[in-house]
């Protein structure tokens, strides 16, 4: 009886091995001369991942590319280097990574193997100055705008217009997200400017010291420390870190202006005037922005160069979709690939991307323009 059991287990092991073998063999597919590009995302799930994959799937045929995905760690450089190495080892000619982590070490590997690296939705804050002249680094496209000033001002204007008087301020620690300081400063400056001219009753109170979240949900004592707030400017990802605390403490009457987006109905059904109306602003970056590093890498691989190629690697802003009211939300639901996860909703078609390649006559200016013309008005115009 025991012996049979052992045999069964051995057989099972062999079977598992064999199955995985077969599965793997299936994975290989037609190789041809497709160019292999590795994509390292710091999330392994979620709408951004789905949309990125959908976009790359949609354009892979036209560009004759094949994409391999790995998940990066947000905190562990060694793990990220291993992931990058494995991409190189599996034959990738280029890599697009969303984390600026161990970048210098990874670039050394790239130099050894002749692989190109590009950044995606990341400003490469820590390493950019050191790597921008590295021939294997093609530049990065930022998650929205590099500077936070503009958005801070925009939110301040909305708040002034919509008449909220007591504003809570929440952000991530500045060691991790330095640009949220700019939003903070810009917001406060704008409000102060308004307060100078406003009647006493209309003056806006802003939380004196911005609360920093250590990547943990807001704690309930926030409400006892700031009892009277009627709106929160959440510079950090408020969907995951602020909203849960609001619902749990029945504070959804507080309006939330925050970065980030969710395709989840629990968020969207409470946006603007619908549901509890807690969410007033959501912002996300378009996954199509990956076109920038991708095109730059493909140019390098092709051995082509833009006529107006910049002398050093660039940090390019991308346009963001700001959702400020229900109509805009409906537009997003209808037309944005980020929400639908369907390639047909993409800003750029496969041939659009292909046309941007240097060998097809594209220019750097076109490329930058392409990733910067994907804002709300562009979506509405689509």
């Amino acid at each position, binding site marked *: 009886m025991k012996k049979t059991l052992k045999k069964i287990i051995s057989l099972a092991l062999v079977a598992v091995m064999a199955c995985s073998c077969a599965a793997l063999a299936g994975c290989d597919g037609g190789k041809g001369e497709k160019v292999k590009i590795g994509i390292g995302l710091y999330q392994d*799930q979620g709408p951004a991942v789905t949309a990125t994959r959908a976009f790359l799937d949609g354009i892979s045929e036209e560009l004759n590319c094949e994409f391999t995905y790995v998940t990066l760690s947000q905190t562990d450089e060694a793990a990220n280097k291993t992931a990058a190495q494995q991409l190189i080892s599996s034959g990738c000619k280029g890599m697009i990574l969303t984390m600026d982590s161990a970048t210098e070490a990874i670039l050394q590997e790239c130099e050894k193997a002749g692989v190109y690296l590009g950044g995606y939705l990341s400003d490469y804050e820590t390493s950019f100055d050191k790597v921008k002249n590295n021939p294997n680094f093609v530049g990065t496209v930022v998650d929205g705008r590099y500077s936070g000033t503009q958005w801070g001002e925009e939110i301040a204007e909305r708040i002034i217009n919509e008449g909220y008087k007591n504003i809570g301020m929440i952000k991530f620690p500045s060691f991790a997200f330095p640009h949220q300081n700019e939003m903070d400063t810009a917001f406060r400056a704008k409000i102060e400017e308004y307060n100078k001219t406003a009647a006493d009753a209309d003056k806006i109170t802003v939380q004196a010291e911005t609360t920093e979240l*250590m*990547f943990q949900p807001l704690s309930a*004592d926030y409400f006892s420390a700031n009892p009277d707030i009627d709106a929160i400017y959440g510079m950090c990802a408020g969907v995951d870190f602020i909203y849960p605390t609001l619902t*749990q403490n029945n504070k959804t009457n507080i309006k939330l202006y925050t970065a980030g987006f*969710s395709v*989840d109905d629990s968020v969207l059904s409470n946006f603007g005037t619908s549901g509890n109306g807690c969410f007033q602003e959501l912002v996300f970056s378009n996954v199509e922005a990956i076109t920038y590093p991708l095109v730059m890498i493909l140019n390098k691989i092709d051995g082509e160069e833009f006529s107006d190629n910049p002398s050093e690697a660039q940090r390019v802003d991308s346009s963001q979709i700001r959702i400020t009211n229900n109509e805009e939300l409906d537009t997003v639901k209808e037309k944005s690939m980020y929400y639908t996860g369907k390639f047909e909703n993409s800003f750029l078609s496969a041939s659009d991307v292909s046309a941007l390649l240097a060998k097809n006559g594209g220019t750097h200016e076109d490329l930058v323009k392409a990733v910067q013309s994907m804002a709300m008005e562009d979506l509405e115009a689509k």
Partner: protein
Amino acid sequence: MTKKLLTIFKKTLLTLAFPVGMFLVMWLITAVSGVNNFVSPIIMRQVLTNGSLTTIIALAIYLQFKNGRFDFSGGATMILTAIIAGNVTYNAGGNFLMFLGLCVAVGVILSFITSIIYSFSRVPVIICTIAVTLVYEAITYLIFDAKGLNIISYDIAMFGKVPFIFIPLVIAVIVFLFYSNFTVEGKRGKLLSMGQRSAVNIGIAENKNVITCYLVTGIILGLGALVYGSQNIISPQSNLSTSSILFSYIVPVFIGMFLGRASVDAVGIAVASIGMEIMNSGLDCLGVGGGGVQQIIFGMFMLGFYAFSGQFEKLKNLFMRKTLKNTI
């Protein structure tokens, strides 16, 4: 009769000493530091919500502990249960009762699978449950498009809030107490954990007991999943990351086991959980919540408490000679 009342009074006092003491200490510290929002209904509600969750999970961990096993898979079972039950309920448009039912059902099924693997594979329990943990974590990537779970803002997440949170809490405590004190398998489990070989020789069917115990753990884990899923956004897990759930909820178990000696173990754990949450909330108010300082204080407290309770035992032995006989 009055004597009995007096003992009950004494036991209650001893049991409550920990959270009350913790409250006073934190209150004093916050007051001295000029933080005046510590004593507020919001904080109290936070203590109760978090404390209830901690209690339920700690009970599930402790039930296996009490039966002589260190089950590594508790965290993974809970996460997977929450993801499955939550998503199914949501997709089916079910209500919070359906969520409750599904959580318990899925928790029981997963625990049953674990127990079957353990009792028939006869692999040492830690190693076996580590393997099971890896499998359950991997499954979180395979189901529901690896979305994890995010239902905190729906009505089905009702059990995550005061006062409804007390319903799963009370069920968990009752199930725990009922199983370990009043049922045949609970008694058998006690015999097995204290003297495994002897109990097997006497003729207690160990496999059956292990499976029953896991089924009960499954109920409690299911309730834990219900509350956890109602309070947290859950993302898929990998590489034993769920062990951090285990390690962070094990401290109340350690403390509760000691406090429980004054009364009943389950009550000790509940009281320890509340006490720890008072500490956490106090630290939050002081502005050191969630950061490195809190972790360090937490670690210091755990070691200090454990060391104290260890010495307590030795002190007690000094006055009770009886143990001497047993060592020879």
